[in-house]
């Protein structure tokens, strides 16, 4: 099974598998590829709905999908950013949600060095416990469930 392993108290460890890198402005997240169920490009801006920070997107004749756009601090944005042209639907048993990104990269059979965040950043309320460095950038390790839970909790 291809998941991002827990470091279990160690400072770093290697992991290998298929991953997806998602970028929302300067926020970069790494997910196991199996956590993503679909990806699509959008050619129009999703519309606001009655729910705060939830947008709706549908191609002609298709069922509208609920869309969330995250900020660099993983907070759902109230206004849809014009430069998010990629939608990914994340695997979550409880919710069907798509997230909007600036960029997506698939890393096939990648071997990555995972580092634990410093202890001071892993207190109660922490969203992230580890990261990798890729091309000089910091990429935070997450699961689809983690992203969905955080987005919905912040959205209220």
């Amino acid at each position, binding site marked *: 099974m291809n998941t991002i392993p827990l470091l279990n108290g160690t400072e770093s460890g290697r992991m290998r598998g298929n991953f997806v890198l998602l970028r929302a402005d*300067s926020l970069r997240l790494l997910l196991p590829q199996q956590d993503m169920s679909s990806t699509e490009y959008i050619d129009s801006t999703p519309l606001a709905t009655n729910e705060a920070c939830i947008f709706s997107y549908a191609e002609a004749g298709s069922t509208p999908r609920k869309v969330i756009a995250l900020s660099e601090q993983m907070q759902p944005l109230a206004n849809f950013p014009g430069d998010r042209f990629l939608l990914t639907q994340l695997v979550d048993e409880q919710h069907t949600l798509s997230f909007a990104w600036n960029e997506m990269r698939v890393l096939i059979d990648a071997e990555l060095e995972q580092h634990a*965040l*410093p*202890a*001071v*950043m892993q207190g109660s309320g922490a969203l992230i416990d580890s990261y990798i460095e890729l091309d000089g950038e910091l990429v935070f390790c997450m699961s689809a469930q983690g992203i969905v839970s955080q987005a919905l909790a912040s959205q209220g």
Partner: protein
Amino acid sequence: MDMHLPYVNEDLFSVDESIPKVAHAKAYLLEYRQGCFVAFPAHTGVELIDQPKFVMVPGMPYFCRGLMAWQGRRLPLLDLDKLLRGPGAPGSPSVGHVLILAYQSAPGRAVEYGAVLAPSLIQMIEVVDSQQCELPADIEGLPRLSLSCFEYEGRAVPVLDTARIFSNPDT
């Protein structure tokens, strides 16, 4: 310009028995907010860096500014004003100078590093035992974060425990 501070012992807990016990010690004095000072034992100070690059981490505690790159590592960067005075502390210094500090989470463990905002210049001072005083009572978290306290120019200056502030300051 970045400035290296004096040598850091590889084992911060070790005591050199050949050095006679003296009633004075050196410390770095840091003004984390106008008129508010803390000190760090001199052997924990490593380097003063100007405007480091840092990355904010979603969900990090209110007193963290992010992760900064330093010598191939990523260090937590803390805002002491927020750490000591809580999330409601008004204003917040921009990330200008930061002080790199060394700590050991337990005796015998590897030396680790962290960084704190240093909005004003840092002074090296000498402290003698007779300057010891009570911690300021107006900052709730000080007893669990401090090693001791001394009086300096009419102010009580807590000496912060680097291991505590970079390991588990909330507990």
